[in-house]
């Protein structure tokens, strides 16, 4: 009886355990969409993007500089979480655009800043998809 139970359990584990591992991998590799969502104020990328847009629209350049710094630290926090579920080039492009936005803010170029901001929004939407 005991031996039969152990054999059945071993056979069951032989299928269930590998299937569970594959399922965990599938969920982990697909979790980018969920993991990029803000878990607090420190990693609220959509919030920082929205704040930055308002500051640029009303040409409050000092405030937009601070919002840019908040956005940079927020994306750094998110980056760690979604590294496994996203393309390295996607993240690199986001950071490059962030750098260009910084230049536009320093030059107080509203049109260029809004262009870069629009691209950042698009890149964030695609991140981890």
């Amino acid at each position, binding site marked *: 009886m005991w031996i039969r139970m152990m054999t059945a359990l071993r056979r069951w584990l032989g299928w269930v355990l590998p299937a569970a591992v594959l399922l965990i991998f599938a969920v*982990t590799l697909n979790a*980018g969409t969920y993991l990029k969502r803000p878990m607090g104020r420190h990693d609220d990328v959509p919030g920082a993007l929205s704040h930055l847009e308002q500051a640029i629209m009303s040409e409050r350049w000092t405030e937009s500089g601070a919002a840019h710094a908040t956005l940079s630290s927020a994306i750094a926090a998110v980056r*760690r979480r979604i590294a496994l*579920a996203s393309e390295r080039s996607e993240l690199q492009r986001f950071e490059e655009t962030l750098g260009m936005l910084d230049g536009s803010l320093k030059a107080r170029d509203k049109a260029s800043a809004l262009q870069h901001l629009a691209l950042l929004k698009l890149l964030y939407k695609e991140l981890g998809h």
Partner: protein
Amino acid sequence: MSPTALVFLRGVISFVTLLILARALGKQQLSQLSFFEYITGITIGSLAASLTVDLNSRAWLPWVGLVTWAGLTLATQLLALRSRNVASFLAGEPVVIIHHGRILEDNMRRNRYRFEELFMQLRMQGIFDLSEVEFAVLETTGQLSVMRRSADPFGHRPNLPVTVVQEGKILHDKLAESGRDEDWLQESLRRKGVRALSDITVAVIEPKGDLYVDTYDDRPS
């Protein structure tokens, strides 16, 4: 996360996935693989490598590719187990190259098999004289199986074994090839005490003309 750590993590996922899929795909040895299975193996390996080091593609995509290729391979294996036609389509069938000492050039041409390859494979089996060969069969793996001529005092020449029943079904084409008919088969099976065709795993007409029958009942008699 640094690229090194990312490659390490992706490598672990790739390795464990490959391990699970390889276990599911069975225990065939490399030398027993058909050309298609060999190509499949290379593709799966390439996808696993891409999953590990290609950081510019999402890990999910090569992982799906890996699971898809292994899943399809498993599905074709299961289909081939169920259907002889599918098995024959996927892996091909063994081809007789030398029949009663005569080389079948048409079969060689159809399989793009050269004389140099034939002679080399015969030499590798220690055969340097073609007249020693009764039968040579090119297997689906590309290996050559050879039956040597035996000195029969009565001048009888053996034939290749022919499978005439497989998993309860008569292989009519093979039966006709062997020069026997269904009446002969039914009579032979009756003499061997087999009640129904569905009891038979495999029945083979052996080189000397006897019928070998294996049934699903594996209890020792």
